[in-house]
């Protein structure tokens, strides 16, 4: 079992109940869509996985780590096994494409030669090898998201958490990103992706977890988006 939530509650300091007793299991190599209205708790769900937030109540284990009881010192090591992708890419604007990706490997103190080899390999995989010396501002939105994906997968994480990765992209570019994520899933990574994109969810037919008001409303193996857009 890769991710296991047992009766997870998350209450923010302002009193908002983001999650109200969520229990779910996600296995190795699954591809999961997280759907639901804005503010239903999708982002909190994902933040708990990469330990940006801690559960207020309940048991959460990711890769065998007990997230709720994790010592701050250990957080970086949990995150090295999780790749995170955002709607707004979150690249460092002053670093080149190569540096943005290599950076994630420098952090784990990989040997320099390996960093070079592996970084070029993933840039090749996302189709941006030829733009390795460009700055993020010189790339299109789709290309920037590809760099962010390259950074997320460069350390071979077991889980990829993607929070609306196609939210800022046009449909055609979005499909390019989805094909890439499917490829990464095919190579062995578990993918948890929050999305509002009905077309993508309904076409790809993967597991769908719907969150409404902090509860799991639906959990289907080959689900559909299920909301009007």
């Amino acid at each position, binding site marked *: 079992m890769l991710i296991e939530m047992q009766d997870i509650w998350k209450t923010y300091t302002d009193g908002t109940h983001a999650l109200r007793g969520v229990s779910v299991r996600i296995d190795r190599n699954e591809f999961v869509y997280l759907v639901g209205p804005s503010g239903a708790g999708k982002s909190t769900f994902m933040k708990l996985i*990469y330990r940006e937030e801690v559960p207020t109540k309940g048991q959460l284990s990711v890769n065998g780590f007990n997230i709720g009881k994790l010592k701050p010192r250990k*957080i*970086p090591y*949990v*995150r090295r096994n999780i790749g995170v992708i955002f709607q707004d890419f979150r690249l460092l604007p002053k670093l080149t494409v190569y540096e943005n990706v290599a*950076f*994630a490997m420098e*952090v*784990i103190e990989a040997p320099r030669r390996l960093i070079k080899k592996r970084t070029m390999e993933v840039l090749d995989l996302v189709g941006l090898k030829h733009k390795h010396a460009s700055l993020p501002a010189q790339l299109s939105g789709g290309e920037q998201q590809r760099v962010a994906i390259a950074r997320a997968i460069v*350390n071979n994480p077991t889980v990829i958490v993607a929070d609306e990765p196609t939210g800022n992209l046009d449909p055609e570019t979005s499909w390019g990103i989805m094909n890439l994520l499917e490829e990464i899933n095919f190579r062995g990574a578990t993918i948890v992706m929050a999305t509002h994109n009905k077309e993508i969810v309904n076409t790809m037919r993967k597991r769908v977890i719907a969150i409404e008001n902090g509860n799991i409303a639906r959990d289907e193996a080959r689900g559909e988006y299920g909301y009007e857009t």
Partner: protein
Amino acid sequence: MKLSTLLRHLREGFKNIIRNGWMSFASISSIFFSLFLLGVFVLLALNINSMASNIESQVQIRVYLQTDIDQQKANQLENKIRKLSDVSKVEFVSKEKGLELLRKNLGKDGDALLDGYDQASNPLPDSFTVEVFDPQNIAATASQITALNNGDETKPITSVKYGQGTVEKMFKITNAIRNIGLIVVIGLGVTAMFLISTTIKMTILARRREIGIMKLVGATNSFIRWPFFVEGALIGIVASGITTVVVLMAYSELVRLNEVELGLLMIKLIPVADCGWKIATLLIGLGSLLGVWGSVISVRKYLKV
């Protein structure tokens, strides 16, 4: 830490200065201006201190002896005075020498007054000129000398003079000047810290995102901290290095230009060779500390997650 990681931190710290060009420039400028003001005032304070010490060191004790004292007794007294803890120098001034000095000091006006006095009719007593290590303690030493009369019924010492009253007033003034100098220097140091911490607050905002992303990909806190540390130290060293060069060059030019004019006023500036190292050590040491302190503060705030 691996050597390659250490090199990586040094490289990144250096690159960050270039990447954050304007921020680095702002930090360097604010450290430069703060340290420049501080350097100028430290030089001023050093010079005032040296002038005050110079004036103070001219303070002496004159010990007048009985006119009919014999040479042996005078020698004994000289030895006793020399043994006092704060006495640095004792000079015997014979009555003949005293008359000669008096003539010289009074110049032409004194000729009429002193005419007719010669070796035989010299009215002056023998005396000692005593110099002390610490002029601020001169009163205590003077009374120790007076006390040498005790237990000697001939009372060989007639009077001990050191400009009572005037000397104390002078010390009040020189001490006040020193204290004001110290207060101004401390005040400038505090101002420098405020100026620099404002610059840091600006850099924090610019760096928040960067630190967030580093944490997201699993960087440990120390890994995040190091390049900032290197960057801060480099900025501090560069800024204080420039400040030191500018301050010392300006000062040596000032010394050169004013050698003659201030010399007439009996003011002598401390030569660069004597204070240059002090200033350089102070400014560069302080600059590096400020740089490191600034970057450590700016990072610490965003490491607590």
